[in-house]
């Protein structure tokens, strides 16, 4: 058995334990996406990072040692987790409007918990799939708007008007404009709706809407 200190609390764990086991034994929780106890600890998501004696390490892979001082949460760790999650999201094809997970999604809940923007209102919308407003022909801005409102408007059958601001990811816009809106909603209508709150839209997205819609925006 070895003695370690998790956030200054003394814990005794077996010699071959991992840092994440010590943290859990001390009653703390580390967010993780890829770790499954006893099955998978390849440390690919890098969300479970903690500080051991001042060094940042993935807790699901790092073994404990006598006298290790572990810090589970501080502002730097939160920032690192957020960056790692943003990198994961960058390669994730965000298609919440047609995703089979229907909101039961760890990526989504973790994004909310860590305050990562870039998840659309569709992720919270109960109308996803067959009763989707966009599929019905309403110019709903759900796919382009930052989530967090619990989809209050689309939930009641009223299209999203983008009051929470837009996702500033070209990827999300390209996908939504080309796959989603083009067949269902007149881009002219969408163009008018995007300016509803006169929200900030970067040049690249400006250009994108113009290119796709062939209309001066």
């Amino acid at each position, binding site marked *: 058995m070895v003695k370690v200190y998790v956030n200054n609390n003394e814990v005794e764990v077996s010699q071959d334990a991992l840092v994440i086991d010590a943290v859990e034994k001390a009653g703390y929780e580390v967010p993780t996406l890829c770790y499954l106890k006893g099955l998978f600890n390849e440390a690919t998501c890098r969300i479970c990072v903690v500080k051991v004696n001042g060094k940042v390490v993935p807790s699901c892979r790092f073994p404990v040692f006598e006298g290790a001082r572990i810090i589970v949460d501080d502002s730097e760790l939160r920032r690192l987790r957020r960056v790692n999650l943003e990198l994961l999201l960058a390669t994730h094809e965000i298609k919440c409007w047609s995703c089979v997970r229907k909101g039961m999604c760890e990526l989504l809940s973790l994004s909310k918990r860590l305050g990562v923007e870039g998840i659309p209102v569709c992720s919270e919308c109960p109308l996803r799939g067959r009763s989707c407003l966009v599929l019905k022909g309403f110019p709903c801005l759900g796919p382009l708007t930052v989530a967090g409102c619990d989809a*209050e408007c689309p939930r009641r059958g009223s299209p999203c*008007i983008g009051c929470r601001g837009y996702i500033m990811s070209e990827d999300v816009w390209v996908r939504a404009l080309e796959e989603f809106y083009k067949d269902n909603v007149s881009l002219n209508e969408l163009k*008018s709706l995007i300016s*509803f709150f006169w929200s900030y839209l970067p040049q690249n997205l400006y250009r994108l809407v113009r290119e796709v819609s062939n209309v001066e925006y």
Partner: protein
Amino acid sequence: MSIKLTSEVVRVAGESEILVSIDGERVKVEYDSLASPRSFESLVTGRKYWEVPYVVSRVCGVCSHAHFWASNLAIELALGIKVDEATSTLRDACNKLQILQNHVIHLGFLVLPDYGYSVGNDKYVSTLLKVNRVVNEALRLLGGRLTNPNVYVPGGFTEDLKQPVIKRVVNLLESVGNDLRELANIILSIELPELEDPSPEYVSLRNSPSVTVPVEGPYIIDSSKNTYTVYENYREIFVERYLDLSTSKKCLMNGEKVFHTGARARLINYLKGGSGLSSELRYLIARYEPLFKKNPFSNIYAKIIESLLIYENLLQTLSSLDTGKLSRVRPGNSFSGGFGVGVVEAPRGLLIHYYELNPEMRVIKADIITPTVMFSKHIEVSSEALIKGLLASEEGRDESLVKRFVEALVRAYDPCIPCAVHVIKMKR
């Protein structure tokens, strides 16, 4: 004696200023808005018809339902859509809930401190907050959100409001009946200053506090002496004037008559044809009717009595409402352009929306006349009468007393400055 007073009236919605100049026997009062222009009429120009209600409901947080409903009504009339009775009744119920909420909050937090009540008085504040919370919840259930509603669009409701939802609203409302009566007792016990209304002209939609389904154009508007049928001629009846110093306008009836609109006007006109009241309300209205016709301060009493009336009416209509037939009509593809006028009773009085649509169903012209624009001239004339009355007595010549009374009078009217500020003409 010469006094010049400038007061930024606090405890009203928005920033406004009242200027009083007294020179011997001559008294002049000007009530101006200090808020910057908001240009909502320009914001909606060029927009698709269905976007308009969402934009204009943001004119005002406390009467967003009235703006939402009026704009929906105007656009429906322009497009030739006719909604069913249940839809109209539900929209009216949402508007009434907001009138109730506005009255309660205005009386409790803005008016009562003028009459010696402090907001630190736990008992009445907790009653107020309870009523407010319940009405908020009811509004959320019916209207989708507390402010800036989203459940209906031109053509009907976006979702089927199921019977259990209506039942929950009724249950919620039933839970605050006693609190409302308690509040009414407090309000009706305050002593109002004496004042003779210098311009007894009261304008409201016919049967307004009780009507559930408004006549869908032309609207019948009752004034003290006449009855007007208002549709495209609304501009001739409600004539707006631009002022040099103010960002809002002033409205006169037929271009000459100063008039009042709001709770007091609604109750006075309602008495002409109202029926189906409970004995308690009939007694209250009969008791205070002479006061309503005489004293502008009695708008405070009128508001709480109207709240009780609305409460009773809401319970009746919602309990017997059948929402099974809610339908949604979509505008047809062939539309050759047209205009529509929507008139509703907002918490503070008559609200008029006008939209002209082109064949693409985009707005080419918009116009909004709000209640505060209508009665702000009435504030000025009754303030002048109030000051003249004060100056007649020896103790009334005190500057601070004049200021206190004038501010209390403005608050009794409950002006809403953000509503009143719209497009103004620039002088070049």
